């Protein structure tokens, strides 16, 4: 019966298109019946027309063949059409999520869009509070920290099960973290587990036995984690996707392709109904989630849309309820849209800055770098170019980071800049080599580059060229230090100053400046092991002062603003926070869909 119904639904449109196709073929192609119709006229000598004296130069069957071909093509397309279309029932909430997720495997993902879906499907020992984005107990009910700050004991909840019914034990966490660190998985974010004892050694292959990693199941519901050093933000990391729980049985059975398993075992507030490339990911409430009582929506759709205009159009037409990525606001309309009540801006844990290549002349001289830094009028850049209320900043760590009061770096001071440049041997910019600023070829980067180019020219009398590059080329040039100056940005992974300051130590892979400063490294190391919050802050402040004021291998420009849009009278359960993190669980629609 179902089949008949389905076939009937396909038959009618197919028959319609078939008829249209035949009609069209008859009108356009030769060999059809067209008696009595006079479509066009042509000047002809009337004497030439002799009825019955027709010369057949063509084979009439050819026309039939084409006609039939066209009709069959139509039919094929009709079936193709009806085959491709899937009429899903409407979702409670539809969210435009940004780029297509690379994968949904929590231990492999690196992008924010991916994490926003995955955090609905999986969970770690901790989860993020939707209002503040600070870590609160997730699968662990509570934890204890040893007096030396190195051993955490987590007590798991007793009502934990996978959406497919298997119970969850502490042993599953051990398995998951071993997997995240295994060299075979080659997770790009494995570094998030290097704070665990022997984590780095195992990941880099120095240690072969995973049982020596500092994570053990004491019993079914108790997990003991030993760290290399006391780590202030380890609890925040426990809410990060690389440390999420993955379904042991499925991973053991299917290896890396476990994520293609349907139904996919999930331990988060939602389970996966469908995931189609460039189409949508559909999530349904997981009734077996430990906190299912507080899951507010039954079905949530997340659409992967990369075009800002399309996102805005769908939102305006009521097809989408929430758009939560700053890149999904059309930049041409940003300054207008930003004033609408359904557009929400908030402070965000990301900084845009300039990198100098300290391994090249003349940028190996800190005086030159500082002079260039002091010649940048940041207010002008945030007022004229970025336009969504960004805060100009001279420090790298954005304001609002937990337990940290940011320091000031080099403020705008043209006179001091000129003096410093003269001291460095380039009075009035004389003798300063022409150099190159690398930018990623996006409008925002290029516009900012042009502005800085002009400022340096006007204030210091030095000239630079802008080189807008394709993304991977731009990244490669920075990584291999093949540049003079480059624009860059950094988004914090967790709410702590370490995520910003740690990357400029001499050996960090993200340094990319060629700047090596042992005193800075020492301060960061000390801060990393310091358990006292106040002393830790002071160490970080000393380090940041070196970074943005004394040595200036980088010059911070502004702190990002996050933007998302949704109508607060229709959608509730989203709060603005520093990490721009919005768990799916509390989101719901106030009014039913009309």
């Amino acid at each position: 019966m179902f089949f008949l119904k389905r076939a009937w639904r396909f038959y009618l449109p197919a028959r319609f298109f078939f008829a249209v196709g035949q009609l069209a073929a008859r009108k356009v192609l030769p060999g059809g019946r067209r008696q009595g119709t006079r479509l066009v006229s042509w000047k002809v000598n009337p004497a030439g027309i002799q009825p019955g004296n027709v010369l057949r130069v063509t084979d009439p069957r050819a026309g039939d063949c084409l006609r039939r071909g066209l009709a069959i093509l139509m039919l094929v397309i009709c079936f193709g059409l009806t085959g491709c279309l899937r009429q899903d029932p409407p979702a409670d909430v539809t969210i435009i999520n940004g780029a297509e997720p690379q994968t949904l495997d929590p231990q492999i993902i690196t992008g924010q869009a991916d994490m926003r879906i995955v955090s609905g499907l999986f969970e770690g020992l901790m989860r993020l509070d939707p209002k503040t984005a600070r870590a609160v107990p997730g699968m662990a009910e509570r934890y204890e920290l040893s007096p030396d700050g190195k051993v955490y004991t987590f007590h798991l909840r007793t009502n934990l099960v996978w959406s497919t019914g298997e119970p969850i034990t502490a042993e599953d966490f051990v398995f998951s973290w071993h997997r995240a660190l295994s060299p075979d998985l080659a997770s790009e974010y494995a570094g998030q587990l290097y704070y665990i004892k022997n984590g780095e050694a195992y990941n880099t292959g120095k240690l072969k036995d995973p049982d020596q990693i500092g994570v053990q199941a004491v019993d079914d519901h108790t997990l003991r984690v030993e760290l290399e050093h006391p780590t202030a933000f380890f609890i925040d990391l426990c809410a990060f996707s690389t440390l999420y729980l993955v379904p042991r049985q499925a991973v053991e059975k299917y290896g890396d392709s476990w994520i293609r398993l349907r139904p996919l075992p999930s331990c988060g507030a939602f389970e996966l109904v469908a995931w189609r490339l460039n189409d949508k990911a559909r999530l349904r409430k997981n009734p077996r989630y430990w906190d299912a009582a507080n899951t507010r929506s039954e079905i949530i759709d997340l659409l992967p849309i990369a075009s800002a205009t399309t996102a805005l159009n769908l939102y305006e037409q009521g097809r989408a309820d929430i758009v939560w990525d700053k890149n999904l606001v059309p930049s041409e309309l940003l300054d207008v849209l930003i004033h609408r009540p359904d557009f929400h801006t908030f402070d965000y844990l990301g900084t845009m800055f300039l990198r100098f290549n300290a391994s090249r002349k003349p940028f190996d001289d800190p005086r030159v770098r500082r002079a260039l830094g002091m010649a940048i009028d940041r207010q002008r850049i945030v007022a004229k170019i970025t336009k969504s209320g960004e805060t100009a900043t001279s420090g790298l760590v954005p304001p609002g980071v937990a337990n940290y009061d940011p320091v000031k770096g080099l403020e705008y001071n043209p006179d001091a800049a000129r003096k410093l440049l003269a001291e460095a041997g380039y009075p009035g910019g004389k003798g300063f080599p022409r150099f190159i600023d690398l930018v990623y070829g996006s409008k925002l980067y290029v516009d900012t580059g042009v502005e800085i180019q002009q400022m340096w020219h006007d204030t210091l009398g030095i000239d630079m060229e802008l080189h807008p590059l394709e993304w991977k080329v731009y990244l490669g040039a920075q990584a291999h230090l093949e540049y003079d100056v480059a624009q860059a940005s950094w988004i914090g992974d967790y709410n702590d100053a370490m995520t910003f300051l740690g990357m400029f130590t001499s050996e960090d892979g993200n340094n990319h400046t060629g700047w090596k400063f042992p005193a800075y490294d020492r301060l960061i190391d000390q801060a990393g092991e310091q358990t006292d919050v106040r002393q830790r802050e002071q160490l970080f402040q000393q380090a940041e002062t070196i970074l943005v004021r004394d040595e200036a291998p980088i010059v911070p420009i502004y702190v990002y603003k996050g933007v998302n849009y949704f109508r607060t009278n229709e959608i509730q359960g989203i709060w603005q926070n520093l990490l721009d993190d919005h768990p799916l669980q509390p989101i719901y629609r106030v009014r039913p869909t009309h």
Partner: protein
Amino acid sequence: MYYLRRLLFAIPLLLVISALAFALVRLAPGGPFDNERVPASPEIQRHLLAKYHLDEPMWKQYLRYLGDLAHGDFGVSLKYRDHSINDIIAEGLPVSMTLGGLAFCFALGVGLPLGFFTAANRGRWPDRVGSWLAMLAVCVPGFVIAPVLIMVFAVKWHWLPVALWESPLHMILPTMALGLYFAGQVARLMREGMLSAMQSEFVTAARSKGLGENELLFKHAFRIAVLPVVSYAGPMLADLLTGSFIIENIFQIPGIGVFLVNGSLNRDYTVVVGLSLLYAMLLIGLNLVVDFAYTLLDPRVKYE
């Protein structure tokens, strides 16, 4: 026999294409795993490259790829690690083919009558208006046409949806946006073809034998005039069926065109090579179909 030979000849051609695509995409600076954030240890990068055999010499990688290809396996995407190229093609190609097929019908359905009509009225105002429209369709690129269509039909009048791929209504705007350029091309080819056909000797001969004007136009001139359109239709269909990055991006259509462009931006080697091969196969296949159609249309053409 002739077609069989052509098909056999396509195999070395595909090998050359795959080798070129394989080498060129690897020569581009940057790799699939060069991201803004460098992993905490260079070892991770090394393991990642080893996992996908990207640390081997290129000839070895290529042989490995050919070996997989012989089993019908295009490999795994390096960016979308859960998806094989076969999955991407299986999910995206039917959608792109549907859209492309519709746009193809649209291009022929609009272009052929328009070209025919303008040629039949050559020199008079319908010809001028029609030719101007065809020219406009050829000149204005898709990324201009698509937003204008959305603006008018979806945003202003609310007749059609702005984007997505859910019902037949969702297909109208992308079909038009994708097909208009080709419709213009077809109209122009058709018009030129008609004009030259009307001047050829067999038409004069037919006319002198007293053939009716309609019959002359439709039955005799049309068949010769449509030949340039037919030879254009092969590559056009291949182009349309493999999807369009711009249209799929603007209308958020889950087709395959997006993957080819994003694949090269992401240095997703396997995607680029796999989709290039797919495109080449379609082009070769459809050109074969075009040559076959020639034998049906033009009695003078015969392949040995």
